[in-house]
């Protein structure tokens, strides 16, 4: 343990205390919200029953999907070089889902009986929301199993969890299936809202679109995180590997782009894209930032540049954010006397827990062995 930390044993980053303060503020505000209710703390209302927390949840989940994408590529497709980023992906995934879990508990009104989603007599398997609840909970368990060997490595408890090692095939496989289910089901949630969601975003193909989006967003996040970590640790950049992440992301993104454009054409919605109203502009913005620019990087020589996949990832993530923002909020807007903007408490709780997640990730990178000492070569 702490082999990477040996050079700078005690150093806390400069931003440690400010981020910790933000996290603690979020914890305090969360307790306050639980005991006074949603009305006094948030700006959600009968016309906007979901707010920034849901938007952020739907944005974090595809990013945290990196854990499942990298597991799939390294364990099942057998690309061993991807194992180099498996540990950071699992840690990031675990923290991402933890933030989502916290925000969801804060979000549901009757949080005192949240466990009803596990009561067999209540479970409604026709509901994609129930399916997501069950899958995310089970997947949290899977990620815990996957993260334990990393955290307990070289401690006296290591021998107690040997069984995780021997069962990793089943554990990782189960995690991949659970992820496939809930990443796509996030899109299926909106199949019941065909009459509410803006037609440029609503399509019966939403489950498939969300699934593919989780694929390239997770890979984009991996490219970003790997570049940052390697740079911070002053390691030589393994350009070939980062390029290969970029190429995998590119294939995924291309599939998504084809499906998206095909769906627009099939539904005869191209004229809506050419109308100069707000939604037409947003659709173009999302498509340009989230799809065209990353494709332009990933399918040209820029993919081989040491920062190419990094920037493709940044743009793709921005696109995913716009996409999830429209689908959970702007695209659901109805003509009403009231509108919605997050309250300062909603905002600070969101920022605080993301800050906390980042801090936790930074400390885990610092104290534990997340990157291999030497390169793992392909074959």
């Amino acid at each position, binding site marked *: 343990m702490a082999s990477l930390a040996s050079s700078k044993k005690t150093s806390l980053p400069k931003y440690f205390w400010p981020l910790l303060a933000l996290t603690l503020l979020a914890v305090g505000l969360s307790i306050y919200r639980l*005991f*006074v*209710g*949603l*009305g*006094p703390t948030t700006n959600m209302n*009968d016309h906007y029953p*979901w707010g920034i927390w849901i938007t952020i949840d739907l944005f974090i989940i595809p990013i945290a999907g990196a854990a499942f994408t990298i597991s799939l590529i390294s*364990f*099942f*497709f*057998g690309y*061993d070089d991807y*194992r180099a980023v498996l*540990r950071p992906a699992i840690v990031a995934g675990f923290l991402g889902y933890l933030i989502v879990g916290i925000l969801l508990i804060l*979000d*549901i*009104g*009757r*949080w*005192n*009986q*949240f466990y*009803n*989603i596990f*009561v067999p007599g*209540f*479970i*409604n*398997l*026709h*509901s*994609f*929301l*129930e*399916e997501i*609840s069950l899958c995310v909970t089970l997947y949290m368990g899977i990620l815990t199993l996957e993260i334990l*060997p*990393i955290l307990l490595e070289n401690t006296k408890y290591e021998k107690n969890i040997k069984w*995780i*090692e021997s069962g990793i095939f089943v554990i990782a496989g189960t995690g*991949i299936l659970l992820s*496939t*289910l809930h990443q*796509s*089901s996030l899109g*299926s*949630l909106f*199949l*019941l*809202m*065909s*009459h*509410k969601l803006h037609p440029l975003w609503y399509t*019966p193909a939403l*489950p498939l679109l969300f699934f593919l989006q989780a694929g390239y967003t997770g890979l984009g996040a991996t490219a970003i995180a790997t570049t940052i970590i390697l740079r911070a640790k002053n390691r030589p950049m393994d350009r070939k590997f980062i390029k290969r992440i970029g190429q995998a992301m590119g294939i995924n993104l291309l599939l998504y782009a084809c499906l998206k454009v095909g769906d627009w054409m099939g539904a005869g919605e191209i004229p809506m894209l050419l109308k100069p109203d707000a939604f037409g502009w947003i659709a173009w913005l999302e498509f340009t930032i989230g799809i065209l620019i990353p494709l332009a990087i990933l399918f040209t020589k820029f993919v081989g540049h040491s920062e190419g996949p990094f920037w493709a990832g940044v743009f793709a993530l921005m696109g995913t954010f716009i996409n999830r923002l429209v689908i959970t909020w702007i695209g659901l807007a*109805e003509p009403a*006397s009231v509108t919605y903007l997050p309250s300062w408490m909603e905002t600070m709780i969101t920022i605080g827990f993301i800050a906390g997640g980042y801090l936790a990730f930074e400390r885990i990178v610092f104290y534990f062995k997340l990157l*291999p000492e030497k390169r*793992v070569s392909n074959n």
Partner: protein
Amino acid sequence: MTISRRDFLKVAGLTASASVLPNFSVKATNRKTHGEQVAMLYDATMCVGCNACTNACRQWNNTQSETDQRNVYDAPVELSADTWTMIQLYQSGDESSFVKRQCMHCLDPACVSGCPVGALQKSNEGPVTYDPNKCIGCRYCMYTCPFHIPRFEWDEVIPVVAKCTFCNDRIVDGKGPACAERCPTGALIWGTRDDLLAEAETRLDQDGGRYVNKIYGKNDAGGTSVLYLSGVEFEKLGFEDVGVEPIPMLSEGTANIVLPGIVLGGPFVLGLIRWVSKRGGWEESWPV
């Protein structure tokens, strides 16, 4: 009838006798058809906007009045956690009409399909009911409802979802919904859905000039238990075109394919991927 094929085979195998089979189908259904379930018919051309229905609703369900600035009238502007039904007025030029708002009690409700914990149910009698002991307050129902009906007690610490219950607690006693029993002009009546549809058709036939030629709720969103007749086009009264397909059809159809598909087919596909792309690695230990 909710005997699964597996139970069926189990029983059939045990007894190995064809004579028991009819027993199952006998006790199978006391499930009412949609036509036998309770419904309401609101005829906007007969409504005088007296708000007796709103008050009857408040009295029976113990909801708070929403007064105007002088604290005089009960003057809700739209449905809320405290106002489960109300009369609105549409006016444009010479044209005007009252319109009653409340839960439409869909025959195949999107809220029931989406509710993760089964807090919302379409009861055998017809009303769409809500059970706060199951509800987790996720508010998915508020998004799935094509009629924008469910409301939330935002100011409560542990809030409930609020909407018209069709006075289910009266229905089970054989009484009608409070609003329909109070209506003095007969604009709002209740009965079985089949009877009310027949009544609405008769009115359209006999007095066609009075109405636009449509019974809203007959087929809309797959049919609803609250039916509307109007002299003004329904879009003007705020009724959107929600299609005639039940809203949950696509979602439940997808769930029925995706869920078993991934659970059963997923391991097979993963194994196949692993087998085809055998590139080594499993033998090495975890963590990597």
